[in-house]
């Protein structure tokens, strides 16, 4: 448990950056830097956070920071960690890698897999705004069913993305990591606790944090945190952690808020409320429920005799 007053006032991710008004990933970066308890080296994938925070000659960062390419963040972090190990400085420094959902779920997955398998000591934080936002809102492996993006537009025939969201944490857990967790920027205490837990591990750890995007999700800029909260409260984005393969639910949500309250404020889901896509809205609801049940079952919250639903997408 952390109190806000005990957090440092030092802004290692400082103002003057060009992230959008109300940007979820910007808040994510700020909170992450406040959670860190050791000096950090940050490795950043190509994407919104990197581009908007380091437009030459400006940089919002007050820590050693490197951006190289889109898909190699975990490989670059591996190289830095090897250097620190050679110098005997690896324990004194936190290596934190930031990648968006595009740069992690899709193009960055190979490098992440390699780094996890080799057990480099670093924490990989995937900030998930559920699409390739920096290039203008294209669908990624993290985009949910039914969401409209520019490459999965909601037309008259097709209701946005027709594939489900990849289970990133499941993939990471399959690599035998000591700690992996989901988080939401709305639950700062839970997120900070998880970042601290992750960085304390001597080995690779992964956090998958939901960070809404006002421009890409098409909602009013003041609603970012509210939506990051609703995502959890509707069971759309379960908060849980996995420690050496043991799943634990961070927030139980016994009485979930109806999913519509999360969907309605977002332009990317507006089409689901048209009559012709009613069954797609039902499908999204079914997937959210099925995913929740999957996670809850893994966390031991519901008995495993409950038969699993036919298709089990994840989030």
């Amino acid at each position, binding site marked *: 448990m952390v109190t806000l007053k005990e957090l440092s006032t030092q802004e290692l991710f400082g103002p003057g950056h060009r992230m959008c008004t109300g940007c979820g990933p910007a808040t994510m970066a700020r909170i992450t830097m406040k959670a860190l308890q050791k000096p950090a080296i940050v490795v950043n994938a190509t994407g919104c956070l990197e581009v908007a925070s380091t437009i030459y000659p400006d940089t919002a960062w007050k820590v050693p920071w490197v951006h190289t390419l889109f898909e*190699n963040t975990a490989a*670059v972090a591996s190289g830095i960690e090897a*250097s620190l190990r*050679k110098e005997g400085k690896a324990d004194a420094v936190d290596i934190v890698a930031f990648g968006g959902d595009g740069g992690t779920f899709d193009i960055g997955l190979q490098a992440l897999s390699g780094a996890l398998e080799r057990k480099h000591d670093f924490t990989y934080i995937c900030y998930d705004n559920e699409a390739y936002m920096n290039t203008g809102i294209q669908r990624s492996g993290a985009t949910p069913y039914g969401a409209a993006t520019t490459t999965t537009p909601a037309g008259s025939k097709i209701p946005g993305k027709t594939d489900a969201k990849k289970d990133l944490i499941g993939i990471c857990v399959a690599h035998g990591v000591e700690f992996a967790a989901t988080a939401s920027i709305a639950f700062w205490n839970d997120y900070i606790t998880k970042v601290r837990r992750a960085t304390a591990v001597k080995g690779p750890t992964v956090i998958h944090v939901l960070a809404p995007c006002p421009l890409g999700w098409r909602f009013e800029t003041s609603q970012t945190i509210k939506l990051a909260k609703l995502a959890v409260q509707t069971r759309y984005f379960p908060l849980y952690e996995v420690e050496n393969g043991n799943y634990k639910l961070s927030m139980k949500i016994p009485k979930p808020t109806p999913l519509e309250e999360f969907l309605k404020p977002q332009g990317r889901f507006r089409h689901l409320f048209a009559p012709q896509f009613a069954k797609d809205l039902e499908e999204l609801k079914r997937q959210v429920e099925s995913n929740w049940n999957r996670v809850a079952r893994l966390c031991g919250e519901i008995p495993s005799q409950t038969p699993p639903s036919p298709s089990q997408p994840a989030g």
Partner: protein
Amino acid sequence: MTKTISQKIIGMNGDEAVAFAAKQAQVDVVAAYPITPQTIIVERFSDYVANGEVDTQYVCVESEHSALSACVGSSLAGSRVFTATSSQGLALMHEVLYLASGLRTPIVMAVANRALSAPINIHNDHSDMMGSRDCGWIQIYAENAQESYDWTLQAFRIAEDHKVSLPVTVNLDGFTISHAMEGVSVLEEDEVTRFLGRRTPMYKLDIAKPMTFGALTLPDYYSEFKQQQVEAMKNAPPVITSVANEFNRISGRQYSNLSGFNMSDADAAVVCMGSVAGTARTVATKLRKQGKRVGVLKVWQYRPFPTQEVARALSKVKSVGVIDRAVSFGAPYGALCSDIASTKVLTGIQTKIFNVICGLGGRDIKPADIEGIFERALRHAEGAPIDDPLTLLGVRP
């Protein structure tokens, strides 16, 4: 005049010689990924690691793209780093090559040159490195295992020099050099340590002094950083020469950007890179005995291209056959011949030029082939017109 230089001779193939040099250079981090015909480099190095002969962090990455990416990360963290690849691996790393030179990270990478797919072919030609020749790396071509060892050592000095700060590839012909054993003269460990010293990075990822690497530059700044790279390439040849002179003092072997054989009074010459130079010299020696005035110009330092030095070497040469070991599809000449032709345009030398592309996909370049090139060059030197400016040698119709 020369001091007694204490060197052991060890039977090693080109790959082993490169690994041995990297060991003596006491690299901090090696990123390893296998691909024929470079694999022996990383395998041999891993033996050194397993036997505690080096204090190197050895990272078995999951692809060549990650190999070079890890090297960039390590180099930015201040380490001396090394990796090796060939062919498809080099092609996969393509964007990372530009990243490394743009970020000005000293890295030494050995490339055991192998043909690019398709069709897949694991044998020697230069299409891999030529496919990335504009990437901003310094590119050296070794002729044999000895040169592979010698150039790998020098490469660390060249790359890490603050006036240069560019990554360097040492190219060695796949199988022909990489897998062929020679007696390689190696320096004493402490001689290498004195020669190379420790790396002192200009800028690095350091918690004591936070810096931002890899910022986005808009049109108002990008060009200035490219100009810096151009300047670094201009700074490289004098650094290469001074490192070579120092290396000569400790080894007795003198390197430079070019190597001329019987060039001073040659009417005709072959210009080439890599292992074929050896065959060319043997043929040239035979033709000289017949009274033919022929020479061989071997290019060591391909990038930056030593335009003025090439012009000086060819100033009295009437005709040259330029050997390229890769096709530049759709282009009037192969890569090396293109640079020779540009040299002619820029410096006004009158040498007649023709291009012979041969040795693709590991096809043997026989002495008779080279003799044919010399004979052609001699005919052109006497005034015969160049009907075939570009030939793919020995292709069955």
